[in-house]
């Protein structure tokens, strides 16, 4: 029983991390048809930003309490800024060349981890965090690490915030409409490119937050963390349907749980394998994805 509880909580924590990457990825693809290969890099930037600030480089920030919150905010802000820069400088000039947009993000996705390992080394760095978050708590007889709970809570907050944004604000309305028919949105007199920058900012912000909290989950940061999570985020995006935040949420939970349980109860690595095979199978069975956007 305690194993099941632990696996469930870990799976949910992992799912929460996937959601933080996949929700932005899904919105960006849904709206712009750009599969952002640099999204993992945005997560890494957030992770390193937080790590840098929490290691005492940012005045006021630190590994504990309010200092850590500040560090997470800093990392998230840096990731958001990087995402906006990515959209404006790299993606936007290629507006009329969709395939080159993807290629350019591939280049960024290669360059950023390399730059990070150039600055801070390619080895994993221990991630500082508040004592309160590094402990465990008892749940149905299992000792569950607190950081799983932090990730799940953060993902829930992000989910609610995104839903409110999409459902209640005009910008959210533009994004939802743009996911359906971008050209028609412009034909209503709306500059859809502003929405592009916005979804990149949102995606970068949420991914960077995922990086910051992922540091807690893994206990360390390394330059390739984001990229290795990206493939599972792809699985989530395709499973949940392109452009659908709620779909991404459900898919994240499913993928996280399947992966954890399969890895534990069958041979190690089989869970990872099962998940990528699931991606292929899903695409083949429903080539248009769940929202019909994937051609």
């Amino acid at each position, binding site marked *: 029983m305690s194993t099941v509880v632990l696996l469930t909580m870990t799976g949910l924590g992992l799912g929460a991390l996937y959601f933080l990457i996949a929700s932005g990825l899904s919105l960006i693809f849904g709206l712009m048809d750009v599969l952002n290969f640099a999204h993992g890099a945005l997560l890494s930037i957030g992770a390193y930003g937080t790590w840098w600030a929490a290691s005492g480089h940012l005045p006021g920030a630190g590994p504990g309490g309010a200092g850590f919150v500040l560090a997470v905010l800093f990392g998230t802000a840096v990731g958001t800024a990087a995402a906006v820069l990515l959209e404006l400088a790299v993606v936007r000039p290629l507006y009329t060349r969709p395939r080159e947009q993807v290629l350019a993000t591939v280049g960024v996705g290669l360059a950023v981890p390399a730059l990070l390992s150039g600055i801070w080394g390619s080895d994993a760095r221990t991630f500082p965090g508040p004592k309160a978050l590094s402990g465990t708590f008892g749940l149905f007889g299992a000792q569950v690490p607190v950081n799983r709970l932090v990730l799940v809570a953060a993902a829930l907050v992000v989910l609610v915030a995104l839903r409110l944004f999409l459902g209640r604000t005009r910008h959210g*309305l533009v994004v*939802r*409409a743009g996911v359906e028919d971008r050209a*028609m949105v*412009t*034909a*209503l007199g*709306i500059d*859809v490119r502003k929405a592009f920058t916005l979804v990149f900012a949102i995606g970068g912000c949420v991914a960077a937050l995922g990086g910051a909290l992922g540091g807690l989950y893994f206990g360390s940061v390394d330059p390739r963390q984001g990229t290795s999570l990206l493939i599972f985020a792809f699985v989530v995006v395709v499973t949940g349907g392109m452009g659908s935040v709620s779909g991404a949420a459900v898919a994240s939970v499913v993928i996280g749980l399947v992966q954890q349980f399969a890895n534990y109860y069958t041979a190690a690595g089989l869970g990872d394998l099962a998940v990528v095979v699931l991606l292929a199978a899903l695409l083949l069975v429903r080539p248009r994805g769940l929202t019909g956007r994937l051609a």
Partner: protein
Amino acid sequence: MTTGPLLAVRDLRVLIGGRHILHGVDLDVARHGVTALLGRNGAGKTTTVRGVLGLVPRTGSVRLDGEETVSLPTHTVVRLGIGYAPEDRGIFAGLTVAENLRLAERRGADGPAYGLVHELFPELKRRERQLAGTLSGGQQQMVAIGRTLLNGNRLIIADEPTKGLAPKVVTEVAQVLERAAEAVPVLLVEQNLAVVRRLAEHCAVLADGRTAHQGPAAELLGDAETARRLLGVGHGPVTRASSVEADS
């Protein structure tokens, strides 16, 4: 500038995927009433409209009230005061009726004219919270036209608004357009000659991506021989028009 046509299109050319779709379209939209854009299937009517709006890459000259728009992006062209109801209606299926309308709101002097839209289409008020994808074709067309009436537009472009609708709904749509045209000039792409006859004062005919004829609508439709030559109408415009109506 208050003289001359409201919209003056000169030598509009559109090239998509290395193929010329338009080879030089000239089109004047009058400052009052309905100007109909006619032509056989594939003549380039929809492409002309899309070219005017900048939804396809285009060259030539498109002047709205004297202002050159050919190098402007679509959203800027539209903000000059154009309401557009596209051929496929351009409804956002996953959004509610109210959201579809709200999306079309533009900042203007008087604010969105929901009063007018709901007066013309009381149905839209009743179905405000319904997803637009679940509406009937006619109701979707109401949303599409409603969007063009929401803002104080200088020009309404309606691309085949009666296509695929039941005869009763065709009449309804025609009535609304007639009323809209009292306040705002309308560029109407239309295959249904009965509707054209009822609404249009002026018309332009396209053939093979070029302008083949421009003039008063009555003149063209009254001349069975010219109409047949330009529109491919089989037995004179009257029978053809009624058969179209019966088809739909």
